[in-house]
């Protein structure tokens, strides 16, 4: 950290006087195994899964009947009845019913944003403990009535006389009866996320082989983490599942190379994105226990890592200026500059694998001198990420990606890794988290071993 009040070179803003802020520490986390959509959690609602993840966390840390400062979580695919999803999950859990909660939604960055928001409250002294989390179910997704039917029903409710009602009903057409299924397409472009990424992947000339290699490493690293018992204190089984169902421990580069492309098939150039190097739709939930140092000490709980800082960014993908999922490429250099750090000061890079192409495009952008000069305002290339430090215990390509649950998965795992590593080069080990999100957004964060 630079001296307080002394802006780091290139910094755009300075953090609030750090001496007056408390530390927000990650105590630990708990998630349920992630399940491919239509699998083990087909009949589980978001509330069921979030409650299960909370109860596992409560059991791990003995938080029964504890009044937590605040719980924040969210879901991307959300039923309208779940307007108070997190509070309802808290009420169904073993926590004190006097624990307040709120919902948050920032697409795939939801989970990480709950961590950052709650950590800030802890740093400010507003709360002493918090649980951050996220959940998503693509199996139990909401299905809405069509816009035509919805308007008719609302007008029908307003109609006062029988003739008025009949007149309203006469507007109904057969096509209005078809339900409106959810889709993850971008409202302003109509393109799915995969098609957007295909544009970016092609723009950065990311090869099929490089994408498959990243996917292979994700599966291999995640499988090794399971074998080492890494998840024994990060996960609680749910509905008969004790491992992420998307994990293919026996996959090979050859098997991945044999898959047919699914995105970018009409771009002219050779299509490179397959079901193997893209994340599948997934169901799951994750939670992270955050606290002030004093609260953790008073409860005899571990302090794994400190939440140092976070940064959000957004890009203008609508007009094609940048790729839909490229916002982290802008957020990371801003975050590093504010904290006076470079890639050499980071020991673990957790870059969410929405698609292998997303990670590789982002890495390529940071290595590209022109992009870094013209778009990031740097003197030259930001630099290369040491691949040996990238997603070392696997990431979303292997684990799956229940949108809002990914942030919590990464924060808890990274905090455990940082705590295990302890010191690096005579300073606390540091980790960088980068998560891209729909709407051209990205949220990134810095954690440090406690």
């Amino acid at each position, binding site marked *: 950290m630079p001296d307080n009040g002394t802006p780091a070179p290139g910094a755009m803003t300075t953090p609030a006087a750090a001496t007056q802020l408390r530390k927000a520490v990650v105590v630990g986390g708990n998630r349920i195994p992630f399940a491919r959509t239509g699998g083990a959690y087909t009949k589980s609602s978001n509330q069921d899964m979030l409650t*299960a993840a909370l109860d*596992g966390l409560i*059991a791990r840390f*003995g938080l*029964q009947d504890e009044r937590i400062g605040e719980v924040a979580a969210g879901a991307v695919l959300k039923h309208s009845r779940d307007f108070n999803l997190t509070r309802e999950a808290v009420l169904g859990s073993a926590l004190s019913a006097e624990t307040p909660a709120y919902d948050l939604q920032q697409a795939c960055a939801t989970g990480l944003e709950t961590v950052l928001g709650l950590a800030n409250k802890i740093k400010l002294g507003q709360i002493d403990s918090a649980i951050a989390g996220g959940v998503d179910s693509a199996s139990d997704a909401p299905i809405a009535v069509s816009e035509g039917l919805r308007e008719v029903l609302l007008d029908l409710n307003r109609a006062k006389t029988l003739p008025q009602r009949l007149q309203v009903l006469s507007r109904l057409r057969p096509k209005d009866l078809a339900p409106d299924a959810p889709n993850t397409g971008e409202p302003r472009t109509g393109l799915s996320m995969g098609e957007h990424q295909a544009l970016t992947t092609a723009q950065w000339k990311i090869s099929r082989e490089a994408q498959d290699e990243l996917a292979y490493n994700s599966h291999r690293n995640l499988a090794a983490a399971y074998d080492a*018992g890494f998840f024994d204190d990060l996960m*609680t*089984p749910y509905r008969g599942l004790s491992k992420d169902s998307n994990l293919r421990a026996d996959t090979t580069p050859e098997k991945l190379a044999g898959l047919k492309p699914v995105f970018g098939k009409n771009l002219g150039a050779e299509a490179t994105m397959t079901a193997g190097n893209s994340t599948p739709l997934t169901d799951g939930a994750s939670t992270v226990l955050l606290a002030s140092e004093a609260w953790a000490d008073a409860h*005899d709980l*571990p302090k794994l890592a400190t939440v140092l800082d976070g940064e959000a960014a957004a890009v203008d993908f609508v007009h094609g200026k940048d790729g839909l999922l490229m916002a982290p490429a802008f957020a990371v250099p801003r975050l590093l500059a504010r904290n006076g750090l470079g890639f050499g000061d980071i020991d673990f890079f957790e870059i969410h694998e929405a698609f292998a192409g997303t990670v590789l495009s982002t890495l390529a952008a940071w290595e590209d001198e022109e992009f870094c000069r013209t778009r990031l305002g740097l003197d030259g290339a930001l630099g290369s990420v040491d691949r040996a430090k990238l997603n070392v215990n696997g990431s979303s390509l292997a684990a799956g990606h229940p949108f809002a649950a990914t942030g919590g998965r990464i924060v808890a795992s990274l905090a455990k890794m940082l705590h295990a590593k302890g010191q690096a080069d005579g300073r606390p080990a540091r980790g960088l988290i980068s998560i891209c999100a729909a709407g051209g957004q990205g949220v990134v964060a810095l954690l440090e071993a406690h």
Partner: protein
Amino acid sequence: MSDKYTQFVSRGLGRDLARKLGLPQPVELRRYRPGQPLVEGPVLIQGAGTGADELAAALLAWNLDVRRHAVPREKLGAIILVLDEASRPEDLEKPVLTAGASLRDLAANGRVITISRDAAEAAEAAMPAVAAARQGVDGLLRSLAKELRAGATGNGIILADGAQTTSPSALGALRFLLSGRSAFVDGQFLTVSSAAGQLPEDADRPLAGKVAVVTGAARGIGAAIARTLHRDGATVVAVDIPAAGDHLAAVANDVHGTALQLDISRDDAGQRIIDHAVERHGRLDIVIHNAGITRDKLLANMDQGRWTSVIAVNIAAQLRINEALLASEHFRNTPRIVSVASTSGIAGNRGQTNYAASKGGVMGMVRATAPLLAAHGGSINAVAPGFIETEMTARIPFATREVARRLNSLQQGGRPQDVAEAIAFLASDAAGGISGGVLRVCGQNLVGA
């Protein structure tokens, strides 16, 4: 898991029918609930001598309705036969026959408890008549227990040299055997080997302030142990394999404890248990080795996997964890270890050579570990459950299960809680003078010792 037959013959038409047809007539056992009176009705103490007198005084201090002489046709809650001074077989006659005359007045779920001395010590001292009198109590009690009806049980306390009728563990054992905590313990002896141990300040919370680890806590007997230790005041660390984590979390939340997902057959399991207990709860007092697996097969068809895994989980893991516990400075303040053995390890069971070897091993380990723990005021014992109504036994075919559950003096299966109660007693301060032994919780199963 419910025993419909016992419910049916416990009242009304079913009771009359069973009586007329000469069918087994199990009754619903009086099980312990906090606040419950120790005994329902007066306690008759038979036997002359200092030991009996001192015991009567101690029981009066518990506000029990103590009688030294029976009043005919007055219902008795318990009969205590103090035989500690018997030095010839003839000495048994008077107290035993006098007590016998009162048996018809023993209430349903009543208790008969003998207190005698250790025959083995007399044998070592080459005193044949004394040994005969003492060993005679063994046969007497086991037969008497089989004569009792309506949920009444007969058990004995054996005092070694150095222990008196009022030693803490003698009184502790007496309280356990009198109470509903011992509902499914029948025809058994508890040996008090020393004057060690301490009676609790609050009899309803004998484990207050203790930190207890229970392995295999996600389900069945393990979950019942966690709940019982919590009820008795302990802070519980619930341990089970990671794959059982969801059930484990439910149990941990239920008992306001913590869940530790851990495969106990890992090399570092002992250290991880100690670390968790000490870092999260500040201490470690009690370890309950309950985790166990069955991989049944006739020995002729036994493969290496079935044999190895059962030995690894059921006994090798316990030995390794105990080594870590014995080496730890955090396990030095009157520590307690209780292991779950099995009547299979005593009487044998077809198809369970591997399981019985592991459970026999548990009993041998317990005997040999007792002296190692004694230096720290610690104790270690095993509890051997008989037929217990669990999810596991619910999968036994109906006819086999019906026969198995009636093959004991109480004519019914026990409940997980019954095993847990025995474990909670042996884990308490009051059991400090009881170590190295095996307590069967089997309703005096007709099979085996």
